[in-house]
């Protein structure tokens, strides 16, 4: 039997809008910067980079970005100073601070200066994508952010999902897991990244895999019952990948 695709299927585009989002990565460590750029480009973003304070300042003063990933410890100056400058100039665009310091003071200062989020290194790329998506959804897409995966449609703001026209019933955590995997569609998501994102970093790391697995099992069952054309693959010992 051949399954007929849903008529409102809009393809594999993550956004239902066809805007190309422009992201600036301000990061001095070359390997880190390359990793970020590669991963963001895979998602279809246009990515530019700056590796020090002055280069970053030049770029943010001249161009407009939808999202800026900002490292605090930069050669030539403090990233927070860049942030202050950016806000003084009244520039639009979301700012996510990406810091290795993980210091409460920096976090509070950064958020007070108008940063949209704070991500402490090290982080999983999956988490970065979720954060970027979240700030873009809030600040740029004006709610036009439904995710379509074949016949599965997910609305992250109103928090519903449906297969074709049939609504699915999830509990809060199941929806969070699905959304996180959907945002990171076709990308391997580490089990810890998923566990920390959905249950917070308080989760016990020791048996997180078993625990996450039991949640995934429920989710798979529901997706299957509704005939959703997505699959959650387990990648042995590492995590999960949602393919559509």
């Amino acid at each position, binding site marked *: 039997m051949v399954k007929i695709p849903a008529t409102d299927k809009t393809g594999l585009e993550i956004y239902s809008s066809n805007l190309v989002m422009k992201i600036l990565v301000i990061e001095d460590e070359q390997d880190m910067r390359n990793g970020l750029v590669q991963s963001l480009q895979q998602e279809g973003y246009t990515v530019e980079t700056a590796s020090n304070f002055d280069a970053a300042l030049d770029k943010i003063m001249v161009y407009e970005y939808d999202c800026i990933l900002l490292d605090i410890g930069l050669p030539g100056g403090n990233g927070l100073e860049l942030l202050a400058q950016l806000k003084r100039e009244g520039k639009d665009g979301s700012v996510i601070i990406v810091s290795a310091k*993980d*210091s409460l003071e920096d976090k509070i200062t950064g958020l007070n200066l108008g940063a949209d989020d704070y991500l402490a290194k*090290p982080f999983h790329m999956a988490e970065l994508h979720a954060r970027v998506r979240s700030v873009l959804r809030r600040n740029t897409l004006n709610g036009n952010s439904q995710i379509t995966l074949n016949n599965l449609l997910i609305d992250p703001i109103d928090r519903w999902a449906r297969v074709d026209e049939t609504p699915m019933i999830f509990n809060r955590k199941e929806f969070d897991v699905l959304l996180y995997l959907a945002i990171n569609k076709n990308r391997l998501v580490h089990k810890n990244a998923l566990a920390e994102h959905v249950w917070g970093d*308080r989760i016990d790391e020791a048996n997180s895999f078993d625990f996450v697995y039991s949640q995934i099992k429920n989710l798979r069952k529901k997706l299957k019952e509704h005939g959703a054309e997505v699959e959650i693959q387990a*990648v042995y010992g*590492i995590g999960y990948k949602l393919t559509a």
Partner: protein
Amino acid sequence: MKLQNITTAWFVAALVLLISVWATIFYFALLNEIYDSIDDGLDNQKQLIIQRAAFDSTVLQHSEFRESGYSIKQVSPAAGINFTDRYVDTSLYMQNEDDNEPVRMLTTMFRQNGAYYQLQVITSMVEEDDLVAQLLYSLLWLFFGLVLSIILLNKFLLGRIWKPFYHLLQQLKKYQLDAQSNINTAPTRIEEFRLLNENITALLHRNKLAYNSQKQFIENAAHELQTPLAISINKLESLADRGHMNEEELQLLGSALDHLERMTRLNRSLLLLSRIENKQFNDTETVDINGLVRQLVEDFSDQAQFSNITIAITDEAPCVVHINRGLATILFTNLIKNALVHNHAGGSIHIRIGDKKVVVENTGDDTPLDTTLLFARFYKKNPSAASTGLGLAILKAIADLHGYTIQYSYTGLHVFTIQLK
């Protein structure tokens, strides 16, 4: 003991000694002077009597003291020839006092018309006991007067003089190394206090620099470790994501990733521990512990359910403490997590919250934990477990920072009691 009291005590002790020695010397000097003067008087009287006896022979008949204060009697030439003047203290009945009173008596010999006579001249003496008593009274008055003066001087004068010192003490009491505040020393003309002020200000300045550089070091260490960790994790994940690895290769990769994750947690925990011990959590607020614990238990509910562990909360009393909210969250998260992790499937956790007191009881191993090692860093009952071994050390550090006490006991259940403040 206060400086004022201690100086007063020393002054009083010194005064007692000084006045005693001085009084003794003064007494004998005074007495000596009195004798000298009396003896001169007696000698003078002796000359006068002998002169009178030369032309008034009735004087020689004056063998009783009576009212005149002298007596004369004839003695044999043998007794008189080699006689020197003798002064003695003796006593004599005095009519006015109706008592024997001390007198000073001069005994001498003189020759008149070939006969030897013994002449005794007396004069009234001071009463030594009266003198001593009088002297003692005066000295006691002097002593009390001096002590009173010292106390008053200490109170008013020393209070004024030491003012810069107490001002500095007040400032030091309030001083926090991590806060922005500096100490203001009061200007003073006293060199010692000026030096003290200068040196303490300089010392605090140096400490602040050292503290800041240590803080900087922690942040740098974090930066230096976390960035390579981030890169390694991201690269390995990217490698795994390419999807052309077999299961065995993925397993190796997964294991490497797990250990990098563990290192990340370890690094974060160590940094947190350093921050707590460096008191870098200053912003405190009033935290409702009942609400916080309820929220945390809610957060853990999926995990508890998965392990089939029931968590019950009993609110015995409202519990409100003044603490940094982040630290309070970490404190109770670690407490609950500990009870959850070191439990068995189908077990239970009971949290009782009283006024400034939280008790967590959980099922678990049948043997009590080693209380001497329990809160030590990297202590793990099961060495192969993936936990960092820092959870309870962090708990303890937070408790120590706030003066809370944590007790562990085993009653068949593992009981952690935390006494808040």
